[in-house]
């Protein structure tokens, strides 16, 4: 029992931090740009597929982890500049429809290029096998994912809280017009945030692509969880996304322990409960609006 609990906790945390990587970008993009980005799951999936190609060509997982986010970042810049930017200031519905369309297009392109077979990015030799964590046998690779994602998320958190760029980002999210009036090119900040979000999703894609299968439906599954996290954490709140991601990760892991078929029910019940008690989410800032 204790063993199952410990395993589920490790697992929930690992799942939580990887979900945080995805949800962080989603919430920043929403917070700053008011864009509900349904294409975010597609960027995660693109990260995995591009990682697959790089790992195949260069024979290195590490280069895939480094380069795939850069490539996806460039694609993200293209998406932001050429498709999202012309629609700023309009009803958010335009962005929802646009990004949903982009997600479907991405899936079509992926099936066309790579086919519908499931694939997997080979994990590095160095991280193969499993180790004992107390009474639990746990794969080395998964511990690596846990550590890597935690460090990355922690670094980003500190950067957003402390650095000038982070202050600028938070300020832009809070009051775009004021920042614009102060002479900052908000357009560039928007592009940068979108690129950053896309790259984070791609990192998650490569990380998970080595322990889960890479397949054309992977983007749609993850986007629902990511949106639930963003809503629970409070729309646009980075801190909220992290807490909510860990919470959802643990709910999924414990849920699978108690009643696997009901995991989705637990997740949405949690979301409903949070929204009833605190309609703006855990760290939502309704008063700022």
């Amino acid at each position, binding site marked *: 029992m204790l*063993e*199952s609990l410990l*395993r*589920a906790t490790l*697992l929930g945390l690992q*799942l939580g931090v990887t979900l945080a990587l995805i949800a962080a970008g989603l919430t920043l993009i929403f917070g700053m740009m008011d864009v509900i980005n349904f294409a975010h799951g597609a960027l995660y999936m693109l990260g995995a597929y591009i990682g697959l190609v790089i790992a195949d060509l260069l024979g290195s997982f590490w280069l895939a982890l480094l380069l795939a986010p850069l490539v996806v970042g460039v694609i993200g810049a293209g998406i932001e500049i050429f498709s999202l930017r012309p629609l700023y200031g309009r009803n958010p519905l335009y962005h929802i429809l646009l990004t949903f369309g982009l997600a479907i297009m991405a899936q079509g392109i992926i*099936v066309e290029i790579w*086919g*519908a*077979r*499931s*694939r*997997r990015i*080979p994990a590095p030799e160095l991280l193969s*096998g*499993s180790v004992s964590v107390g009474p639990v*046998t*746990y*794969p080395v*690779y*998964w511990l690596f994912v846990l550590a890597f994602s935690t460090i990355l998320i922690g670094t980003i958190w500190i950067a957003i809280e402390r650095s000038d760029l982070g202050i600028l980002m938070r300020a832009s999210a809070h009051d775009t017009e004021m920042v614009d009036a102060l002479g900052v090119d908000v357009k560039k900040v928007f592009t940068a945030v979108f690129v950053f979000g896309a790259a984070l999703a791609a990192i998650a894609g490569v990380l*998970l692509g080595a*322990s*889960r*299968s*890479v*397949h*054309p*439906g*992977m983007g749609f*599954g993850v986007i629902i969880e990511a949106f639930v996290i963003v809503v629970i954490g409070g729309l646009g709140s980075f801190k909220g996304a992290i807490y909510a991601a860990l919470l959802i990760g643990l709910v*999924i*892991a414990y*849920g*699978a*322990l108690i009643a*696997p*078929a009901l*995991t989705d029910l637990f997740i949405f019940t949690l979301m409903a409960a949070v929204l009833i008690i605190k309609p703006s989410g855990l760290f939502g800032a309704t008063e700022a609006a």
Partner: protein
Amino acid sequence: MQTSALLGTTAGIAGCLGEGDDTLTVGYVLPFTGVYSLLGDSIVNGFEMYVDEQGGEIDGQEVEFVSRDTEADTDTGVSVARELLVEAGADVLVGPVSSAVAIAMMQTVENESSAIWLNANAGDYRVVQDGCLPYHFRTSFNDWQTSAPLAPWVYENVADNIVLTYADYAFGQNSRDFFAEAFEEAGGEVVDEVTVPLGTDDFSPYMGDIEGSGADAVYSFFAGSDAVNYITQFHEFGLDEEMVQTGSGFLLDEDSLPAQGNAAVGKYSLLHYASNHERTQEFVESYREEHDETPNVYACQGYDSAQAFELAVTEGGTDPDAMVEALRGAEIDSPRGDFSFHPETNDPVQDMYVREVVEGEDGPENEIVETLETVEPPTWGCSLD
């Protein structure tokens, strides 16, 4: 796929216009989009490869193909089937992939009674139990075949106790039931079962339960990306060292093995197809030449559907009842091995292969450990003869 679907449509309209023509119309009721598109495409590839080998003609008649996407949805499947039968004047329906679609289509096929139906995949036993329809011929398998016959083999060769793990939907549940029953009948004990929702990416929460069952072996039903995730994570969690993995052949098939990699090695599964069977080689080579990949079981099912169609037309023309007569109990020279239609159910009676994944030259591959010859499936009360 879009283009070929479009070409199919034009060919279908042309076929309609030429009344009393001497062309044959094949109607594909298959998924060409979404997660099951891989299966739909493979079935079409197999079917058309056989027709191409006959110079594009069957019994001296040209063949036209009309493709309709079922989207693996029951309502769409029914309307697609009706459209193909009524408007396109199909002489044969090929498909579907999903058993839910097959069960939904049944009434329509029976009402129209205008064509034979070659079920190139949908394997739920209830298609036969509930339908028991003379026009329905299964060129694929039924879910009893890919689970039950493995049980006595596992009991004799692997372990006398087992934990069952399966994807929680009709196919997974049927596989569990059939296996458990046969395993207990053989004298074995099912110590536990672990149910996993269909479409799970992360199997690690279930690994503890599997390990905790203390069983010496596992029998599983998972397919597609579930199979890749399950096998990979089973290996990552070190369960290979504690128990022997067995399962239906879909767990370790040609589509999943490349992604599963070394994690698949040493695992056993049962299927009606093995791409390294002597008899299959010719089929595998010509398929590879055309599509640059090892044909999967679905391609073989498509290929055999075309063979069945040829046999039906050669002996029965285009009269559906004469075609049914021609196919009843017929044998087909299948690349998969011995194959004939059961005279009571029109289900396949075929060789089943116990396969072990071994390290091949180009990565892991299935090696036949034992051939279970022409395994006779149950009839579930269906009696067409």
